[in-house]
């Protein structure tokens, strides 16, 4: 307003001049740039210099122009930055009157443009005066980009127009300042080293345990999903057995390094800590170990009984501790797989062994587990290698994961699976197809540092599938073990060495035995017993643990279950005798399957007897069960011209057999019952003794062994006792081992009547996972009254009573006439799952007396003549003599004494008054 008034007051002439001048020399709009306070986001940084851009003042005409000093003052004021309203200031301080602003003339007001602080731009330009070329820094707001600015160089006062473009702008002043100013960049980093994670394990464990057969605790024997108690359910038992094996397959990294952490064995094996307690090598065996460790390819051909297995295992220990091997394979016949496992456990407890067997899925898991030694059979190896070769679809990635193809033919998507997970359900993300994945190629791609082939003559046939399978295994150390005299079988030797040392022998060497022997000499070590005799003791005893065949296992499990049921049903009336009877039944199944006669022990025995026969040695085979065992294995051993010696032979027959065995070189094997063997016989021609089964009285076994181990014996006697794992035999042996000290204090000739000194009732019933039945006061008092009644009745009444009892027990009974009954008083018949059970029952009413062995013999004679009779039962109201009990033991005769009869009468609620009429 004020300005307009000023212009209006101007004279006409002057106004006209202004008009003309403005047309000729129009005022330019000026851009005034003011610097606001500069805020820089650098902490604790100093800014050395900031340029203030030059501000160009408006050009004023000669007649409208403040004096120079005022201009200077104005400029100074502008630079002062304290002036906000320039127009007002000009009006107040300048001695000029501003022309009045009219509609066609108005004073140019300098515009104040406030620059925004953020974002701000900086522009570096050069003065366009070629004589100057001063670098100028320009701070701009975004609105000014693209507009024409009039710039006056502060150095040369050259004025030029500049239009800033975005490309040339420096966006962030801070960055520019950082680059151009000497501002130290502070870098922070950690100098602290972090405490690392720890790993490792404790190897200290209690006394090494070899897990026993199925052991379900009595407390907490819960119901399973099949509606039974877990300890009774065959499915749950089998599952628990498999789970136990699967768990024992787990080996971690620190188990694998354990051999390296062991103390060295010493070059001469003279370190006192070289071997587990009680396990030392003979000098000739140390030579064998040295031979093996010094030869990557070797055939150890020591005669049977000289400890090839132990030598091989010790050699392995040596190599493991030296770090020369980290894992390997042991292949052996099926019959001795468990025996190898046990021997490895005894001789090399620090080595982790995985037994590869069972279902395909379980075997695949086993192959994929980490271990020092993989133990398997020739057949399993062949099967798994065949399976591996067929599966080429799986690829193992560098990180250890597996790439497989979705088995859905319509999808075939490639999937990636973690190496560590096996047998899992996999769902394809593409087609949602669900399938189970188990890697099958691992054995073919697995690397082994060593392979040991026990009974290497199994690969004597180059065309056999087993031989071809074995030849696919590429290992640095290849050892063969065989007791067979291979040096006389050139073709077999050539085939064997085709794997052990390829290229050493050729098939045309078959006609050149000397050349073959010369060639294999550095790689073949064979000692006979005569060579090692000076170092060997007179008798060497060994336990061999075998695994029941599938058929035997099924029969055993069923019989075990039935035994448990039987003993449970007896309840408080169950006695040691009942438990012993069941144990006998189970032990007989461990020897032979009752139906198919299949036997893992026989399979093992056959292998060993072949070797023994070839060595021109002879063997004795003992069993407690001539009827149930020896009778059935005899036909299988015909090839050895087997002789049988048992109690039912006449004296002359016995002498004949002994003489023939001692003198006839064709008769290699003599089968004997343990009891018959204890009769002062001399059988020193045999130096191998096998106990097909063992009782718990060691003196009985020793007596048997002493038929061979006695004066006149020139060779070391090798005694082998055969046991089956995961059976009542194993349980009994474990208890007996714990009681070894007790055995030493017991007088020789311990019999069953003194059995309670060795195994308590609790232990006997514990073999069946049962508690010892406790007689209650009530049952005792009942028993007392019943026994009293029993003693008052007549013999015929006693017979009727027993017949009534068996009726109550579910039998169909028939009392025999008083004469011509062959001593049998009652015939009883009952149908069961396994068939019809026929009993021949003889009653002896001797209330205060003792039934002697003659009655048992008599009954036995009768049932022997009648194969249809399942068993004979001798029932008395009194007791049985020791001889009678001994005789009945192991035969088809059951003894019921007075107490037991009373118990049964009470249990089945048999009324005296009713039955004795």
């Amino acid at each position, binding site marked *: 307003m004020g300005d307009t008034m000023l212009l209006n007051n101007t004279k006409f002439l002057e106004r006209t001049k202004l008009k003309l001048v403005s047309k000729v020399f129009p005022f330019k709009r000026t851009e005034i740039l003011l610097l606001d306070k500069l805020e820089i986001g650098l902490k604790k940084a100093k800014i050395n210099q900031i340029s203030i851009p030059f501000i160009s003042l408006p050009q004023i005409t000669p007649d409208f122009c403040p004096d120079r000093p005022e201009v200077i003052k104005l400029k100074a004021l502008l630079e002062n930055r304290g002036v906000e309203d320039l127009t007002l200031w000009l009006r107040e301080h300048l001695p000029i009157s501003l022309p009045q602003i009219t509609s066609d003339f108005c004073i140019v007001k300098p515009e104040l443009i406030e620059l925004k602080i953020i974002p701000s731009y900086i522009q570096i330009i050069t003065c366009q005066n070629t004589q100057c070329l001063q670098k100028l820094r320009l701070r701009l707001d975004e609105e000014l980009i693209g507009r024409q600015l009039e710039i006056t160089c502060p150095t040369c006062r050259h004025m030029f127009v500049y239009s800033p473009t975005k490309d040339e702008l420096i966006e962030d002043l801070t960055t520019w300042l950082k680059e151009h100013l000497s501002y130290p960049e502070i870098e922070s*980093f950690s*100098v602290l*080293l*972090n*405490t*690392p*994670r*720890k*790993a*490792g*394990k*404790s*190897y*200290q464990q209690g006394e090494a345990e070899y897990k026993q057969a199925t052991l379900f605790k009595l407390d907490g024997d819960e119901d399973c999903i099949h509606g039974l108690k877990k300890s009774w359910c065959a499915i749950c038992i089998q599952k628990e057995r498999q789970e136990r094996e699967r768990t024992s397959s787990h080996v971690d*990294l*620190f188990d*694998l*390094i*354990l051999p*390296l*952490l*062991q*103390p*060295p064995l010493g070059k001469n094996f003279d*370190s*006192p*800590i070289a071997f587990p307690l009680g396990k030392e090598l003979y000098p000739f065996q140390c030579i064998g170990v040295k031979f093996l460790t010094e030869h990557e390819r070797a055939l150890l051909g020591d005669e049977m009984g000289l400890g090839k297995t132990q030598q091989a295992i010790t050699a392995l220990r040596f190599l493991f501790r030296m*770090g020369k091997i*980290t894992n390997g394979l042991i292949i052996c016949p099926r019959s001795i797989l468990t025996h190898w496992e046990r021997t490895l456990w005894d001789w090399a407890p620090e080595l982790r062994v995985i037994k590869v067997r069972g279902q395909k899925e379980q075997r695949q898991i086993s192959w994929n587990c980490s271990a020092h030694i993989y133990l398997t059979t020739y057949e399993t190896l062949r099967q798994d290698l065949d399976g591996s070769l067929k599966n080429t679809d799986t690829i193992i990635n560098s990180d250890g994961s597996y790439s497989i193809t979705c088995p859905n033919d319509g999808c075939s998507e490639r999937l990636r699976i973690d190496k560590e997970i096996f047998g899992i359900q996999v769902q394809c993300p593409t087609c949602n197809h669900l399938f189970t994945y188990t890697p099958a190629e691992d054995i073919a791609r697995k690397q082994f540092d060593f392979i040991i082939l026990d009974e290497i003559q199994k690969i004597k046939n180059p065309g056999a599938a087993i031989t071809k399978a074995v030849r696919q295994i590429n290992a640095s150390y290849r050892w063969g073990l065989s007791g067979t005299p291979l040096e006389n079988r050139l073709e077999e030797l050539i085939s064997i060495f085709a794997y052990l040392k390829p290229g050493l022998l050729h098939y045309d060497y078959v006609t050149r035995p000397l050349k073959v022997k010369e060639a294999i000499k550095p790689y073949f070590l064979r000692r006979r017993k005569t060579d090692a005799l000076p170092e060997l003791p007179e008798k060497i005893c060994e336990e061999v643990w075998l695994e029941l065949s599938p058929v035997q296992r099924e029969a055993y499990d069923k019989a075990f279950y039935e035994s448990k049921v039987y003993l449970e049903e007896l309840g408080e009336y169950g006695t040691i005798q009942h438990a012993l009877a069941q144990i006998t039944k189970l032990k007989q199944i461990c020897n032979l399957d009752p139906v198919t006669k299949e036997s893992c022990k026989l399979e093992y025995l056959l292998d060993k007897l072949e070797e023994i026969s070839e060595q021109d040695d002879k063997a004795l085979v003992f069993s407690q069960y001539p009827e149930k065992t020896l009778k059935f294995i005899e036909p299988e051993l015909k090839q050895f011209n087997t002789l049988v010696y048992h109690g039912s032979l006449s004296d002359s027959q016995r002498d004949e057999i002994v003489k023939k065995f001692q003198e006839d070189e064709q008769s290699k094997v003599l089968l004997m019952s343990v009891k018959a063997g204890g009769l002062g016989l001399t059988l020193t021609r045999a130096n191998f003794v096998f106990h097909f089964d063992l009782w718990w009285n060691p003196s009985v076994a020793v007596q048997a062994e002493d038929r061979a181990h006695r004066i006149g014996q020139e060779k070391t006697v090798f005694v082998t006792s055969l046991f089956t794992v995961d059976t009542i035999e194993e349980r009994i042996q474990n208890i007996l081992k714990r009681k070894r000290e007790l055995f030493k204090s017991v007088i020789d000739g311990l019999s069953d009547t003194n059995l309670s000194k060795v195994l308590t009732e609790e232990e006997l019933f514990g073999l069946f996972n049962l508690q010892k039945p406790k007689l209650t006061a009530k049952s005792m008092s009942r028993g007392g009254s019943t026994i009293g009644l029993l003693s008052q009745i007549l013999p015929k009444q006693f017979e009727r009573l027993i017949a009534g009892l068996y009726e109550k027990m579910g039998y169909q009974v028939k009392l025999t006439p008083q004469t011509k009954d062959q001593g049998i008083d009652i015939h009883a018949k009952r149908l069961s799952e396994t068939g019809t059970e026929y009993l021949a029952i003889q009653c002896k009413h001797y209330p205060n007396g003792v039934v002697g062995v003659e009655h048992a013999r008599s009954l036995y004679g009768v049932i022997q003549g009648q194969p249809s009779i399942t068993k004979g039962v001798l029932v008395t109201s009194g007791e049985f003599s020791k001889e009678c009990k001994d005789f009945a033991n192991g035969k088809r005769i059951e003894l019921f004494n007075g107490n037991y009869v009373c118990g049964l009468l009470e249990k089945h609620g048999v009324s005296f008054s009713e039955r004795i009429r």
Partner: protein
Amino acid sequence: MESNSEGENMLLGFLSLYETSSKDGYLGAILVTDLQGIPQEFRCTHPVKPTTIQKPLYGDTLEPYIGVNLCGIPLIKSIQNKPSIIVVNKDFLLGVRVSSPCPVIFIRRAGEAIDIKSSDSSETALKRERIDCPTGKFQPIVCASHPDYDDDIMSAKETLGKIFNYLDPLEPFERMAKAIELLSEQDKRFQ
């Protein structure tokens, strides 16, 4: 924690520091054995890998710091089967003694030349004892204890002298080295 010092149940500990196979880090390890050298427990650390900046910053204190503070003391605390005596094969590892409940002894083969110029330590300033193998089966050893625990050496001498009949006290360190090597081959975490 109390150490086990009952006669036949005595345990020995062997503590050492190993360089990784790629020479870029360090691993601590402790092996506990019975008097016959049979391993009872083995623990080791994952590698400590100092950066290129940390190495010069720590200088000569790097190995002692890693060996004692980062590996040694935590390892001793972690073992379940407490030894009666801990044997080390590097003199700077004697530093674990301040946290160890049992004596810690440094051993080396007698007759080995000590590089006095390159190390400040330690060993030349330590009280040393020589132990000979009674049977002559092994070469004699020299043992030393932490300067603040002079008594350690006397109790250790008795134990070491006893086992020296059949066990070379330096041999377990070789086993540990092989075990560490195998660990690093089998598991990337130890490389």
